[in-house]
């Protein structure tokens, strides 16, 4: 048997046109989807804003054409649905044209929410993994804890969030910690579920092998269960980091927080600033994508260290 036999075959090389390469990659599919979204968005803006625009025309007794109406519905100050370019301009104004530390800068608010998200995520992962380890090793814990863990997620977070904020505020915790705890409350759940499944994923033969070596439960955990659970952990982490962000934003809503994406959403809705709300939403989803992508990157790195097939 030779080395070549064990090596994966390299992809055939040859002249490929740029167009074909683009089609095989993500560029073309992603841009097609984005184009459709933008078209639908502009159309939606016309549909939703036109009643107000027409009303305004009629109030002022002006003759109007279809073209005027559409143009105006894309440029309203307080539209029902702002058009994409309005959001883009607002984003540009509130990111690039402000100082990073300014409260007018959306990136500053993203940073505030991002730190709460990350702290909540770390706390949630620690809690989730510890609970999973307990559940896998102690039968009583599975019976006593698991129903409560599931019940915890059936309570609407919007109902609990204000109470957590108020209670923690009373004992002197404000700012970052209450938000992070709400994040943790949401994101430990997928971690528990994924890790319990992952820690139990070794097959009977893998367990038998450990038994033939008279391995201790600790050795089985560190050398078999934990390693086997890694793919399950990363699947959970992607969900967890995304809902951790949701938790942090929700945690900013009832506090009347001065900063954070949640605070921007709230002040936007107070003053009917839909453009501000939508740009905060765009920043929130961009932040979410960055976080999920970062988890994906570390998954790839760990996977390569652990012999995952490329």
């Amino acid at each position, binding site marked *: *048997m030779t*080395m070549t*036999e*064990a*090596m*994966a075959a390299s992809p055939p090389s040859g002249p490929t046109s740029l167009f074909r390469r683009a089609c095989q990659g993500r560029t073309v599919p992603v841009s097609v989807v984005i184009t459709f979204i933008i078209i639908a968005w502009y159309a939606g803006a016309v549909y939703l804003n036109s009643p107000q625009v027409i009303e305004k025309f009629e109030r002022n007794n002006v003759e109007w054409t279809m073209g005027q109406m559409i143009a105006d519905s894309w440029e309203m100050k307080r539209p029902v649905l702002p058009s994409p370019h309005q959001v883009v301009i607002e984003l540009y104004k509130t990111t690039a044209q402000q100082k990073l530390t300014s409260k007018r800068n959306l990136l500053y608010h993203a940073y505030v929410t991002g730190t709460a998200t990350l702290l909540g995520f770390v706390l949630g992962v620690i809690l989730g993994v510890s609970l999973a380890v307990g559940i896998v090793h102690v039968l009583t814990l599975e019976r006593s804890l698991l129903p409560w863990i599931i019940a915890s997620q059936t309570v609407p977070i919007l109902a609990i969030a204000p109470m957590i904020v108020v209670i923690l505020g009373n004992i002197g915790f404000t700012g970052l910690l209450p938000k992070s705890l709400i994040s943790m409350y949401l994101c430990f759940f997928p971690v528990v579920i994924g890790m319990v499944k992952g820690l139990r994923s070794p097959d009977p*033969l*893998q367990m*038998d*092998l*450990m*038994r*033939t*070596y*008279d*391995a201790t439960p600790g*050795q089985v955990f560190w*050398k*078999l269960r934990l*390693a*086997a659970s*890694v793919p399950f952990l990363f699947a959970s982490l992607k969900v967890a980091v995304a809902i951790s962000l949701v938790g942090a934003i929700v945690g900013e809503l009832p506090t009347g927080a001065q900063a954070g994406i949640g605070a921007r959403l709230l002040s936007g809705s107070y003053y009917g600033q839909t453009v501000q709300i939508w740009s905060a939403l765009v920043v929130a989803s961009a932040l979410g994508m960055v976080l999920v992508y970062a988890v994906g990157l570390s998954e790839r790195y760990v996977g390569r260290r*652990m*012999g995952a*097939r490329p």
Partner: protein
Amino acid sequence: MAGDDIMADAIITAEGLNLVFETADVPVHALSDVDLKINKGDFVSLIGPSGCGKTTLLRVIADLEHPTSGKVEIAGVSPETARINRLYGYCFQAPVLYPWRTVIRNVMLPLELMGMSRGECVERAEKHLALVGLQGFERKFPWQLSGGMQQRASIARALCFDPELMLMDEPFGALDEITRDHLNEQFLRLWERTGKTVVFVTHSISEAVFLSNKIVVMSPRPGRILKIIESKLPSDRTLEFRDTPEFIDVAHQVRLALKEGHSYDDD
């Protein structure tokens, strides 16, 4: 040979072994009154159709199953003590290499569990990988190896802590015949060199006859030993030996014994 000598040489003794699996409907008699004596240095094959209890017997010896009644001793101690003292290395039907460990780290696994120093782990693992012809593949991950190479890595893992006994459960069963023949020959050389006692489960007659000096023929429902065939084939035999009259004669005896146990009947 005097009776005392045989006792002194025996490494595995099983007496009146019974094992009944309680299932939802009917209890399954996996082992029924099994008596077996395996001497030090023997290469013993357990052969029989599916469900004859050959794997179960091997798992009882390895303390992976507990007999309902009867007694097993390995080198004078119970299977549990033997397992705790790491007296045997076990090869499963599948290679059971941990996919997240490189080949060398898979072989190092039992050594790590025994608390050996890193240096000694590496040295022993490298030595045993060379013994099974896998030098140069130490840093590969299991999926980068062919099935036969994976199984050889698992043999290296079973050998690397130098156990007295090798328990092998159809280790080559999942491989194609050409690879299997090749590994049979390599493994025979390895056995001759190391002088380990091997208990080898198979359902290939030619594999059993080629490898073993003692063939235990088993039969299902209930799982029991039908016949023990001693074979005195020359030790330096190669694959060509399977075309000689001696080989064919032993294979014929095995087939006859299987027939006696109605192994070829329709159910």
